[in-house]
């Protein structure tokens, strides 16, 4: 079987494209960084990742300008039939602004709004815990047990999942589209800071579309993939929990796409 081929989409201002590409390679996929204005055919790729950073300097608001780029129209076409698409941090903001997440209607149903944090306004960096809520139900949690905890960093100013439609959150819970939630070291979900680092509704850290092939995640799994990246851990090259998001993506492609 040929290796799954991933396009890591780069918009001006992104800064996590190389480490994201490397994590794909680490789990045995091929990966290439594709610029937003590339003429390359996206149909030759099996999956896509929009990495973190500050696309277009977060002008107007995070993710919105990239969401309006033509390449996102093409990406929407590509993922319609099940190819996986992962948005990490700024990539998650792009996916929410395109309406791909949560993707129940053909419009923008949510926001990744400025953090609500009692200590810091604006950009906030910290190590947090998230846990897999549903077991294996999307392209990115195949290798996680239900309630498995991941120690992972957040680094954002606009990471608060929110919506004015209160019924939507219930629907996302019912559809099992909320994939990861912020929790404490023991897996207990507490809505207060610092467990919930940004005030996200229902402690949401990651949401998928209903089909489960598109996911927006605010924390950075590419920075929580090896022990040497995790604080207070033996500095060796053993794999850490975050890398299983990429491994799951590979598994999904091998089973459903190739």
């Amino acid at each position, binding site marked *: 079987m040929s290796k799954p081929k991933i396009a890591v989409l780069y918009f001006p201002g992104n800064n996590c494209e190389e480490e994201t590409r490397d994590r794909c390679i680490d789990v045995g996929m091929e990966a290439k960084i594709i610029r937003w204005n590339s003429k390359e055919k996206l149909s030759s790729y099996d999956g896509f990742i929009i990495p973190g950073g500050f696309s277009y300097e977060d002008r*107007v*608001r995070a993710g919105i*300008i990239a969401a309006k780029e033509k390449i996102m129209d093409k990406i929407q076409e590509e993922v319609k039939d099940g190819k996986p698409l992962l948005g990490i941090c700024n990539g998650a903001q792009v996916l929410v602004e395109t309406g791909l997440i949560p993707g129940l209607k053909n419009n*923008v149903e949510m*926001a990744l709004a*400025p953090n609500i944090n009692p200590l810091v*306004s604006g950009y906030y960096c910290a190590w947090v815990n998230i846990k897999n809520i549903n077991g294996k139900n999307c392209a990115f949690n195949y290798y996680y047990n239900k309630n498995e905890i991941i120690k992972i960093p957040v680094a954002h100013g606009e990471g*608060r999942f929110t919506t004015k439609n209160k019924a939507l959150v219930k629907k996302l819970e019912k559809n099992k589209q909320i994939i990861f939630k912020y929790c404490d070291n023991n897996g207990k979900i507490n809505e207060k800071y610092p467990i919930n680092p940004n005030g996200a509704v229902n402690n949401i850290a990651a949401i998928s579309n209903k089909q489960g092939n598109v996911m927006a995640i605010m924390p950075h799994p590419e920075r929580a993939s090896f022990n040497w990246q995790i604080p207070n851990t033996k500095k060796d090259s053993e794999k850490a929990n975050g890398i299983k998001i990429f491994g799951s993506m590979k598994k999904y492609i091998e089973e459903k796409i190739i």
Partner: protein
Amino acid sequence: MTTVEMIVSLKVPDNVAITAFNTLKRRGYKFKKLERADYYKFDVKDKIEIFKEKISNTDILVNANKNKFSFSINNNNNKNKKTKKTNFKKINVLIQDLDNGSGLLSTLKDRLGFTNIKKLEKGILWTMYFDKKINAKKIAIEITKNLLMNEHYQEYKIL
């Protein structure tokens, strides 16, 4: 109680407005120009002129090296009406976050001594210039909803 509006914009070209303008053009919107400014609205108790002088000298809102400011939308020529001597129609749209201004208000009151501010609103004021022949207000609202705001945590007003 007196209401004071303060409009602060950049002296140099505003990259955010230019990016938004180019994005909207690419998406097929036809209009002439887009400007952006920071908007503050204070409810102030007495000594208005002293307040205006003091507030314009705080580096928090205005940096004299890079910003220009005005104390009313009228003075800033931003009134929502057909402009004289041009073929433009101007629309001002104010975008505000639903939870508005509390951090800045406490900074101004508690750290900088502006105890006479009773209320503060802030937002981004976008000014769009349209051809007179088109339905400017309708397109301005469409642009606002499509690009300039996310209705899940922001709201807009046409000024």
